[in-house]
């Protein structure tokens, strides 16, 4: 494994001593050249997991190893500098992720300028190369972020992260803020870059349909815990966990014939808030198959079939 989280935990403290169990004992590894898709509803803790994994949040518990080496629980500027050439991230919000006061050139060149301390002018060729590689034009160099569409900004974010040639890329819903037509382009671009650079990727998304094309394995999160993990296609067509089954069933089918036949088993109710969780199955409140013990004991993530890990008492 290139990076491996073991029982990683991130709690946020709220006023009154309450705690948000944003990420609760998640163990997940990403192998070299592997793309792991991380899916889950909004608020399930995907972003928090991604950020805690690479040090943008202090860890509340558990550990992360990168190439076997333990990463610090709490990062300082020096720790980030050390891993800058190894791990990068693409952020969820293409609007907040670019400094409105900087030109596209300054934004993309930032990583190299910080690492090599070179003047910006010396980096121009490389920046232009990356700009074109993500499908933008050299004309755009002196522009400011507000002059770009969401898809173009996301490409700028990709170029900024990849210009330092990292080994691991965390893509936090790089497509969910974009139009469907643009989503496919960005996914395709990321797929190409991943293949040509031999990247490892954690690809975060909230629906499985698009991620399954780029992922080798997929992980499903619910309320801060990992509930299912397995090979992408296998998991998509044969989901084992009741939640994953509902999640996939609620996905609209592109084929109208299938769409009509799809049994409409939408997940009922809202995702509960992850504040001060009790020790039981996170999904018990909404699970159609819940039993008495589901409300008492938290199921562990176990390998139920070769390569298929599920956290459910019934399996």
């Amino acid at each position, binding site marked *: 494994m290139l990076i491996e989280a073991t029982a990683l935990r991130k709690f946020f403290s709220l006023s009154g001593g309450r705690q948000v169990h944003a990420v609760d004992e998640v163990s997940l590894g990403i192998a070299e050249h592997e793309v792991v898709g991380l899916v889950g509803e909004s608020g399930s803790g995907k972003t928090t997991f991604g*950020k805690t994994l*690479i040090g*943008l949040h202090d860890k509340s518990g558990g550990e992360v190893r990168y190439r076997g080496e333990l990463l610090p629980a709490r990062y300082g*500027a020096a720790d*980030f*500098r*050390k891993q*800058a050439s190894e*791990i*990068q*991230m693409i*952020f*969820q*919000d293409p*609007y*907040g*992720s*670019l*400094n*409105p*006061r*900087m*030109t596209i050139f300054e*934004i993309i060149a*930032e*990583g190299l300028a*910080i*690492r090599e301390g070179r003047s910006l002018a010396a980096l121009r060729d490389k920046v232009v190369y990356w700009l074109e590689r993500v499908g933008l034009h050299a004309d755009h160099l*002196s*522009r*400011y*972020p*507000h*002059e770009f569409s969401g898809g173009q900004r996301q490409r700028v*974010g990709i170029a*900024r*992260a990849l210009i*330092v040639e990292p080994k691991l890329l965390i893509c936090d819903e790089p497509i969910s803020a974009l139009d469907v037509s643009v989503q496919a382009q960005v996914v395709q671009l990321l797929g190409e870059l991943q293949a040509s650079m031999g990247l490892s990727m954690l690809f975060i998304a909230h629906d499985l349909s698009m991620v399954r094309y780029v992922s080798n394995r997929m992980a499903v999160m619910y309320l801060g815990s990992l509930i299912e993990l397995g090979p992408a296609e296998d998991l998509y067509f044969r989901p084992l966990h009741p939640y994953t089954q509902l999640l996939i069933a609620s996905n609209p089918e592109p084929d109208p014939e299938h769409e009509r036949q799809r049994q409409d088993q939408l997940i009922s109710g809202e995702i509960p808030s992850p504040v001060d969780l009790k020790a039981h199955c996170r999904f018990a409140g909404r699970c159609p198959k819940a039993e008495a013990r589901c409300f008492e004991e938290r199921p562990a993530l176990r390998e139920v079939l070769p390569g298929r890990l599920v956290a459910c008492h019934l399996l």
Partner: protein
Amino acid sequence: MSKQSFQLSAADFAPAPPATHAERIVRPSLSYWQDAWLRLKKNRRALSSLYLVIALLLFTLLGPWFWTQDYTLQDLDMISQGPSWGSAALVVEDPGAWEGVRGDALPLPQGQELGATTQLTVEGAATTQYVRLYWNAVPGAQHYLIYRNDHAPDSGQDLGLPLGETLRPEELSFADRLQLRPQTYWYTVIASDGLTEAASGTTLAVTTERAITTTQARERGLEATVGASVQLPAHPFGTDYLGRDVLARIMEGARVSLFIGIVAPLLFIAIGIVYGGICGYFGGTLDIVLMRIADFVIALPFLLFMILFRIGFGIGPGESGIFPMLLALVLLSWPSSARLVRGQILQIRGEAYVQAARMLGARSLYLIFRHLVPNVMGPILVTLTFAIPMAIFTEAFLSFIGMGVSPPTPSWGAMSNEGIRTMLSSPHELLFPAFFISLTVLAFNLLGDGLRDALDSRLRSRE
């Protein structure tokens, strides 16, 4: 479309000519500040207030070059005059040159009452410098009482202001030098036998004309021959209760007002930036402790500290104290800007672009100067433009209640304070400084409003 009519020829498949760039719409790329400036220019209210602010600054800084009257020059002959564009004045001899008129005291004939004064006459020209009166002796009079009124006294009852009385029976004249203005006065002279006044006096209507003495003319470099007509300096805003030019004082007072108004906010916002920046950037316990201190300072009563600082600097009541005022403003006003900066920094620190920069290995100084500072400049500028009118107003208020700048240094607040005493008789002394305070406060507030709209990056980047 019918299928038959649709004919294609080989020419239809010829490649199109290479695309020219004629249709490409090229818009110059605008930086944040350029863009903000464009938006500000579109906001007519903000733009006019910007011009107003510039005009006010020019008025203050360049005004004294063009309006060269000395703001300290007192002209007791021109006290509380309304606005005027200069006036001609007669040059007259100095008041001391007249010895007065003496006559013989006449005894009172037996059985007669004290009579009215006769032959009340003005000696020479009646001017704003002096009105010289003389009259014939009244038999039995020991001295004479002189009254002045600015309307015709009816039935001998309201004779007006008692100007004075002569001391000896031989003195048959009186020179009135009491705050004369160019207008008509009614003088009444009544004889008195030392115990009782005569039942009636004589009233004379006198119209004064503006005049200066030869000595004053010489002091001002004007022609100093008696009888000459000279042009007196204009007072477009009138004069104050000491005859000083209000326009010159407004210009000079603007220096104090704008100095406090601009320097105090600059200083306390600078403190706020550093303090709030440290809190927001480092966070944690340091932040909690520092912000509690800021809360404490916010709770301190401003006036009390103002008084303490004045005492601390040994400044008594009625003395000028620009420095304690500046100090009190700076020391007690920074927490609000520190709070603002802290909030901004906290917000920006959580922005994805800052996290991206951290991921790329940015050091603290780089983050601060490259990402945080440029992004808080906008809100800080807006706070500054709102803090300026607040400080100007505070200065005016303090000077008004006598805790700031005191005479002879003018400031708009101090001038309002002086003006309010004569508000009813000569309102211009209050109205002009008050108008300038209001105008400046309004201009800066409107400008701040416009800036806030123009700099709102959310409006811009998330349209």
